[in-house]
């Protein structure tokens, strides 16, 4: 295996782990907002998907997001971090990964800056994660669902901008 490829796999594995665990750091701050809006979440997952999107920016690989989503799902199952989704948790990780891949393909054909591409991809990944969680667990509908998805979208966009900045800085180190 080429050294550069191995380095990339290690980076992807690191991003998988960061995506799984680091959202706990954002949770206390996110909860202040979601509790005041009376919705069950939607912010910290956007921070988690940011690592997925950043990794996909560097990995020269098709379906990188889906693969990382599957790995995250398997890790979550193995470590018992399944939350209220239970055995369906891998779906909750796989869907944003798949959406990330599809968004990257679609946005790759549209003229836009890297920052726009990363932010929009993360927004879609975040909204898809929220939508999946709602379908599997929360069962929200009507205006609460709209609010929940919109909050996920806004935070996806915000963390996407952070991801774009992170990508810029990492480019100097990784490539």
């Amino acid at each position, binding site marked *: 295996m080429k050294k550069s490829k191995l380095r990339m796999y290690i980076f992807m594995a690191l991003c998988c782990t960061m995506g799984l665990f680091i959202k706990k750091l954002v949770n206390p701050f996110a909860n202040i907002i979601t509790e005041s809006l009376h919705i069950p979440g939607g912010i910290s997952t956007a921070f988690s998907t940011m690592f997925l999107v950043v990794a996909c920016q560097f990995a020269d690989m098709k379906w990188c997001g889906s693969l990382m989503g599957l790995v995250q799902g398997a890790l979550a199952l193995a470590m018992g971090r399944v939350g209220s989704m239970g055995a369906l948790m891998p779906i909750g990780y796989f869907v944003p990964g798949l959406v990330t891949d599809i968004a990257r393909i679609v946005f790759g054909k549209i003229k836009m800056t890297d920052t726009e591409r990363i932010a*929009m991809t993360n927004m879609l990944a975040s909204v898809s994660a929220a939508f999946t969680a709602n379908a599997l667990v929360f069962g929200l509908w009507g205006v609460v669902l709209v609010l929940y998805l919109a909050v996920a979208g806004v935070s996806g966009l915000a963390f996407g901008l952070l991801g774009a900045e992170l990508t810029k800085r990492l480019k100097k180190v990784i490539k």
Partner: protein
Amino acid sequence: MKNKKIIIMAVALIAIAAVAAVVHLTTRDEVTAGCVELVYNGKSHDVAISDMKKEDVSGIRVNGKGEEIEVSGKGISLADLLAMKKIEDFTKVTVVSDDSYSAEVSKDEVMESGKAYMMVEDEEARLVVFGDTNSKRSVSNVKQIVVE
């Protein structure tokens, strides 16, 4: 303009979120602190948690990690809670938390002895359905019980 698409998208999303937040926060029923809103036949009334005839409850529930957690404390069975309000004719009960998360309990489960309880701690109610294999119906900070 640099990153014009992001600005347009952000403005659109924030506008949607703001409108939805205003509608959601102004139309949701505000429940008095220390109470649970009971909705039946289109009518709603607050039930004070302190007024519930609680008993000692113990059993095993499954948490989000799939681990078995021993539960013991004061609580009231859903059947007793509905009987307290003289509600007999229903098919299901939907329990809703402060963050709009909800779980359904069928009439059979409500009537099953030792199955569905409202556990009470620090003037806060939590739905516990004993025997479930996951935590989907573990609803904390219960604010509303809709009986249909």
